[in-house]
């Protein structure tokens, strides 16, 4: 019978804040002694090391940070959902989630997030709210329910020793694949990087990318038709004739190191440099962007509505925004992630440190990266992934 009770509780319970995020000293006081379970994708050892470093900083403020390594961010969403469904509205198991895009949109819509808190964080004052897309996430306004911590932009990675002049547009990629069958692949959607490749190609192929800013609706089939036409041609020319795909971005790098592919996609301009430093890629690897520009977005952290350590989680989110952490994240041998901070707003010595950073051999400078293209509305990614699975993801 408690089951039935739990079911009736499902629809109620709005997110409630226990400590006012605006009262930061109170937040810090409450955070001391808390243990924060940060659910973050655990597939990249470089990221895991960085989270460990953040944990050391958190410990100085009396917060114990535990990294729950996920195979997929959706695992954490699922955990919060399960707790919500069963009336587990306090003392939940997830305190902080590395999140963006569809996962954020669905959690926000379902009222599963705590907030708004992001704009109350002390380090928010350094955030570049004008130049960088940190207040919308895949066109969905964040409204303070998630705090940004890294900027990402699509780059392509090639081994200059095997491929000196890589293709710089969707058309060129197809031509190159015709001449070199089996030497390119992308992570299998719904992996976010694979879906990103679909979105990137779609933006390039649709006559007017502006339609992608609105939710995918009745025009979906018409808008995406050129993409499927393109993929129908490309797929047989992919690695393993498109009958198998790598399951993640790092796995794709491994294929490159293994001499199985010559080209890879990455959502982090510095990832290749970090991978070279970690022996994961040959030293001859370089990155480049497409002529028409590439997709860019931000990574965020969000706090579930039922977290048992909301204050501790806010302290961690704030540490992530600190110049020291942002600088470390941008170091090429650590993560190579772009900062979300505005150089103009930083104290002089912090700005100098950023300017002195050597981005590494395989990292493009902000100027070379060129313009970022805005993310489509999350509904596009969801439908593209579903459609891809239907077309290419089940037995042919």
């Amino acid at each position, binding site marked *: 019978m*408690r*089951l039935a009770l*739990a*079911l009736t509780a499902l*629809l109620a319970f709005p997110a409630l804040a226990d400590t006012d995020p605006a009262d930061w000293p109170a937040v810090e006081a409450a955070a001391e002694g808390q243990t924060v379970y940060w659910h973050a994708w*655990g*597939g*990249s*050892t470089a990221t895991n090391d960085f989270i*460990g470093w953040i944990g050391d900083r958190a410990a100085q403020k009396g917060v114990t940070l535990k990294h*729950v*390594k*996920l*195979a*997929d*961010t*959706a*695992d954490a969403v*699922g*955990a919060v*959902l*399960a*707790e919500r*469904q*069963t009336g*587990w509205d306090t*003392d*939940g*198991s*997830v305190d902080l989630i590395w999140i963006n895009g*569809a*996962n954020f949109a*669905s959690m926000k819509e379902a009222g599963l997030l705590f907030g708004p808190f992001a704009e109350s964080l002390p380090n928010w004052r350094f955030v570049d709210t004008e130049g960088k897309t940190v207040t919308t996430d895949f066109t969905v306004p964040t409204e303070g329910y998630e705090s940004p911590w890294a900027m990402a932009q699509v780059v392509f990675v090639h081994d200059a020793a*095997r491929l000196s002049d890589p293709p710089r547009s969707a058309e060129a990629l197809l031509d190159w694949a015709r001449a070199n*069958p089996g*030497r390119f692949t992308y992570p*299998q959607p719904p992996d976010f990087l694979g879906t990103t490749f679909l979105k990137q190609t779609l933006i390039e192929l649709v006559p007017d990318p502006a339609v992608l800013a609105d939710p995918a609706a009745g025009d979906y089939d018409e808008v995406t038709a050129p993409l499927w036409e393109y993929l129908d041609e490309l797929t047989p020319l992919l*690695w*393993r*004739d498109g009958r*198998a795909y790598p*399951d993640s971005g*790092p*796995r794709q790098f*491994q294929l490159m*190191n*293994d*001499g*199985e592919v*010559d080209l890879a996609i990455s959502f982090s301009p510095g990832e290749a440099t970090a991978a070279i430093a*970690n*022996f994961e890629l*040959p*030293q001859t690897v370089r990155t480049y962007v497409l002529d028409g520009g590439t997709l860019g977005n931000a990574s965020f952290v969000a706090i579930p509505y039922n977290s048992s350590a909301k204050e501790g989680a806010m302290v961690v989110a704030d540490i992530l925004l600190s110049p020291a952490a942002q600088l470390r994240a941008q170091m090429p041998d650590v993560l190579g992630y772009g900062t979300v901070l505005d150089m103009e707003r930083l104290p002089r010595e912090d700005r100098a440190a950023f300017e002195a950073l050597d981005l590494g051999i395989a990292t493009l400078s902000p100027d070379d990266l060129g313009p970022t293209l805005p993310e489509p509305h999350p509904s596009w990614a*969801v439908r593209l992934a579903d459609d891809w*699975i*239907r077309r290419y*993801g*089940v*037995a042919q």
Partner: protein
Amino acid sequence: MLRPLPLLTALVLTGPVAFGLLGTVLPAFGLLVPGADAPMAEALAWPGLPRALAVSVLSGVLSTLGALTVAALILAGWHGTRAFRWLERALSPLLAVPHAAAALGLAFLIAPSGWIGRIPATLFGWERAADLLILNDPWGLSLTAGLIAKELPFLLLMMLAALPQTDATARVAVARSLGQGRVAGWLKAVFPGVYAQVRLPVLVVLVFGMTNVDVAIILGPSLPPTLAVQVTQWMTDPDLTERAVAAAGGLILFGATLVVLTVWLGAERLVARIGRVWVWSGRGAPERVSRGLGLTLAGGSAVMVLAGLASLAVWSVAARWSFPDLLPEALTLRSWDRFGPDMAVTAGATLALAGAATLLSLVLAIGCLEAEHRFGLTLGQRALWLLYLPLLIPQVAFLPGLQLLPLSLGIGPSVWLVLAGHVVFVLPYVFLSLSGPFRAWDTRLARVSGGLGASRNRTLWLLRLPMLTGALLTAAAVGVAVSVGQYLPTLLLGGGRVSTLATEAVALSSGGDRRAIGVLGLGQSLAALLPFALALIVPAVLFRNRRGMRHG
């Protein structure tokens, strides 16, 4: 104290399975998860279902047939020879190697750019690896091969344990004196008896082959994946209603398992009939071919798994290592520095969990066996089936429900829930490995001791258990190895907060950093092997001056 234990054990074995199935059935038919109206219809409409189900069934059935055939050929053709003792030694430790670690090693070995493929690449100076779909092939053949290699040691050791009860040596001698060759004689005279003994383990292998997640993620196809992997993906989809679809998928897989089990049991009869026709015909078997095949396949699979583990070891100390180099450019301890300390902490937690689960299981198992000895209390005629129940029901069919139901009773994911979940899977193995030696203990000693005035508890603690030290330690080692290998229960019941070497290894496998996988895979294998080493060494040291306590 003792009397309620058999009942408690039965509850431990059946309760979670029953609850879990309930928690899966409800959402599968549109209850419990709001917004999911017809999950079953949605799961049935998934376009990948026919292929996913076909690959699940195929890899399960083929891997079971393969492992069973190779194990039988090896015993038939080589039992009692030097080659057999070598094989037994090479295969036994592989039993403890966790599935994920073995699969990760194999994956690097057999990929076109893997260790094997690099030999011709180095010889002929290839710069690019061949574009061949060996790994993750659409029909799950590499998955099947990996499962055969991993299940072979299990079935072989189970069959080996069953040999004495089937009077195998004498039967083979008779069969050969009647003109049958070694292989034909063994298959005709011994195999039916051995199979009857290992039938339940064979069914466990069959169910595992059809429904495993960790090996299938690493070696299996992805377009579409096996049904078990797809169910796991549905379970973790951001679209919340997909969890109900996952439950429906789990149920479909459960149904398929039941059908396959039924067909398998029918096929047993058919094979028995064919066997009788064979006996009547007086025909022999292709002796040399079968012996050669058995040795090649068993030796080959042992070498593959061992080489896979060796590759993990090399990766864990590799500096840059690109295709087509056979070895890394340099060796470095950097990966151990980087991942070792965290791994050690996780290993500690893993072993603590394994130790607790094993201890609980030992208490239950000893309690049951002693109750059986003192009061003739047993779990009933179907006791063996009861023990195997949690192993015969696919994990993906009842674990999702097992996660959801406790939540609804106000019990969140916690280390205690994980511990309980581990006990469900550890207890059967501990019980099975302990029950033989426990029952074989000479009960006249108990009567002698009783006659000397010792209470029954005193006899148990001071006589029976100390004499069974070796068996207890082996059972404990088996328990620890089983617990160390548990992936899905830890992931789902711990809500991700409980991380063990198994969950870390599989999480890392999605990223594919082979150095980290190498460190973790080795750590996981060592954690599982260490107790076995202790189980061998401790009794030898303890009873070094007691000839009567040495076996064989």
